[in-house]
C-alpha cells in the first residue's frame, strides 16, 4: 500500500530543489556569517540572499526588516514580547483572536503577569474574527494586536486588510502570524498594511529550524535573545545558515509556483470535501469559502480523533491530523474548535487534511474509502 501524506500543515518535506540549493552550506561553505574571511562571506551572502527572497514572498519593501529566527514560535515570541516591551510607553494592552497559536498566547500571558492587559477577541462559528468585538476591544493603549492570516486547524482566512485598518485606527501595531497562509495564498504586507509578520520555513518546503519575523520600517522591537547581536541585534546567536538559505529558496519557489499549485490543490480539496461530507454525520469545520486552498477539516460525531488518526495511519497508510484532546499532551480539547462554538464532545471527533506536493486527484477515492472505513469501524466500537 502506498503512503498518502495529508498533513502538510504539520510539516512539509524539504523540496529537492531546496536541498540541492542549500546542502553545500552544510559541507563546503560552512562558514560563520560573522567572520570576515571568504568562508564567512559566502555564508553571509547566503543569508542575505535568503532575506531578499523571503521579503519578496510577502512584498516587503527594501527598508523593512526580515529577521531570521529558529522558527515560527520564536518569531511570534519576538513579535509579541519584543514589540510590547519596546513600546511600553505607548500602552500596556494586548489583543489576540481566540484561535491564535499557543506561541502567541503564551507570550501575552507572560506579559499579563508584568502588568499588561490581555484581551481575547472571539471568532464566529466559521472562525472569522468578530469585528464588532475587536472594535470595542481596541483602545489607544492597545500596543500589539495579533491576528493570524489563516488558521492551521480550520483553514479559515481572516479579513486582514479590514482588521489592519481597524487596528491602526484605534491602537498601534498589528502582528500577523502567517505560518499557515504563506506560500498558499498571496500575502502583501504593503497592501494589507501589516507591521509584523511571522513565517515558518517548514511550512514552505524549507528545512525545519528556520523562521522569520517581518518588521515594518519604523516599528521598534527589542530583542528577546541576548548575545552577539546577529540579525541587526534582534536575534543573537550564530545563524542557521543552511536552514535560512533553504527557507529563502523555498520562499522563492513558493512565490513562483503558488498560484498554479494552489489551483491544483483546491480542485483535489473540493472533491475530498464533497465526498467526505456524504458520510453520515460528517461536518465541515471552518469557513466554507474563505479557507486555505489546500485545507479541509471535518468533525465526525460519536468517534474520537486520535483513533481516527491511528486507524488512518495503520490500516490505510494515510497521515492526517486531529484537534482531539486525546492526541495532545495536555489532554485539553483544541482551543480553536471550542472557539468556533463546538462542544467538547464534538471537538473530540475532528480530522484535518492539508494537501501538498505529493498529492494528486487519483488519490481521492482511496482517501475517501479510508475515511469511510475508519468512521464505520470506530462507530461500531462506539457505545454512542
Amino acid at each position: 500500500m502506498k503512503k498518502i501524506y495529508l498533513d502538510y500543515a504539520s510539516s512539509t518535506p524539504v523540496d529537492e530543489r531546496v536541498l540541492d540549493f542549500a546542502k553545500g552550506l552544510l559541507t563546503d561553505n560552512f562558514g560563520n556569517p560573522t567572520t570576515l574571511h571568504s568562508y564567512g562571506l559566502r555564508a553571509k551572502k547566503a543569508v542575505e540572499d535568503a532575506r531578499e527572497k523571503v521579503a519578496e514572498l510577502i512584498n516587503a519593501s527594501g527598508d523593512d526588516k526580515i529577521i531570521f529566527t529558529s522558527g515560527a514560535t520564536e518569531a511570534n515570541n519576538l513579535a509579541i514580547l519584543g514589540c510590547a516591551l519596546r513600546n511600553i510607553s505607548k500602552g500596556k494592552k494586548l489583543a489576540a483572536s481566540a484561535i491564535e497559536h499557543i506561541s502567541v498566547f503564551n507570550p501575552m500571558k507572560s506579559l499579563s503577569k508584568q502588568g499588561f492587559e490581555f484581551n481575547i477577541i472571539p471568532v464566529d462559528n466559521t472562525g472569522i474574527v468578530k469585528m464588532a468585538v475587536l472594535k470595542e476591544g481596541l483602545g489607544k493603549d492597545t500596543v500589539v494586536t495579533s491576528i493570524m492570516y489563516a488558521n492551521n486547524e480550520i483553514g479559515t482566512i481572516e479579513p486582514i486588510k479590514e482588521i489592519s485598518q481597524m487596528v491602526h485606527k484605534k491602537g498601534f501595531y498589528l502582528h500577523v502570524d502567517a505560518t499557515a497562509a504563506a506560500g498558499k495564498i498571496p500575502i502583501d504586507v504593503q497592501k494589507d498594511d501589516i507591521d509584523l509578520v511571522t513565517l515558518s520555513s517548514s511550512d514552505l518546503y524549507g528545512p525545519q529550524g528556520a523562521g522569520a519575523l517581518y518588521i515594518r520600517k519604523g516599528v521598534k522591537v527589542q530583542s528577546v535573545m541576548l548575545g552577539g547581536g546577529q540579525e541587526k541585534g534582534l536575534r543573537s546567536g550564530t545563524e542557521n545558515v543552511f536552514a535560512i538559505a533553504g527557507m529563502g529558496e523555498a520562499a522563492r519557489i513558493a512565490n513562483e509556483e503558488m498560484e498554479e499549485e494552489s489551483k491544483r490543490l483546491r480542485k483535489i480539496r473540493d472533491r475530498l470535501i464533497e465526498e467526505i461530507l456524504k458520510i453520515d454525520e460528517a461536518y465541515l469545520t471552518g469557513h466554507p469559502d474563505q479557507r486555505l486552498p489546500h485545507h479541509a477539516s471535518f468533525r465526525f460525531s460519536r468517534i474520537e480523533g486520535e483513533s481516527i488518526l491511528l486507524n488512518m495511519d495503520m490500516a490505510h497508510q494515510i497521515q492526517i491530523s486531529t484537534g482531539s484532546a486525546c492526541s495532545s499532551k495536555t489532554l485539553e480539547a483544541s482551543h480553536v474548535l471550542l472557539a468556533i462554538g463546538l462542544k467538547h464532545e464534538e471537538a473530540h471527533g475532528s480530522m484535518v487534511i492539508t494537501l501538498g506536493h505529493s498529492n494528486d486527484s487519483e488519490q481521492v477515492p482511496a482517501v475517501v474509502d479510508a475515511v469511510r472505513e475508519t468512521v464505520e469501524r470506530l462507530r461500531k466500537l462506539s457505545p454512542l
Partner: protein
Amino acid sequence: MADIGYSDKVLDHFMKPRNVGTIENPDGYGKVGNPVCGDLMEMYIKVKDGKITDIKFKTFGCGSAIATSSMITEMVKGMEIEEALKVTRGDVADELDGLPPQKMHCSNLAADALHEAIKDYKKRRQNG
C-alpha cells in the same frame, strides 16, 4: 517507557480489538467515562459459578481507551470475579507493555468499567 507513542501490543489491540459488542441479558453491566471528556466505556459480563464466562465492551475514545478495554476483557475472561476485582489499571497497562504517561487514565477507566460491571452483578444477585 520512552514517550514516543504506543507499544506494539496497544496498537494490536486497537486494530483488532477482542470481545467487542454487547451481551443481551447480561449478569452485570458497567458504564464509566463521559463523552465530554473524550471517553466512554460500557462493559457487559456473564457470570457462572463465580467466574466470568463472557465479557463484551463498547468504547468511544482514543487508541489507548480502546486497547485497554480490549486488553482487560481478555485478561479477565474465565477469571473468578473476586480475582477480577483485584485487577488494577497498572496490571492492564503492564499487560500492554506500558502506556504513555498521559494515557494512564484510560487504563483506569477500563478497570473501573469492569469493577462497575462486577458490582452490578453482585447487586443483582442480592436483589434477585
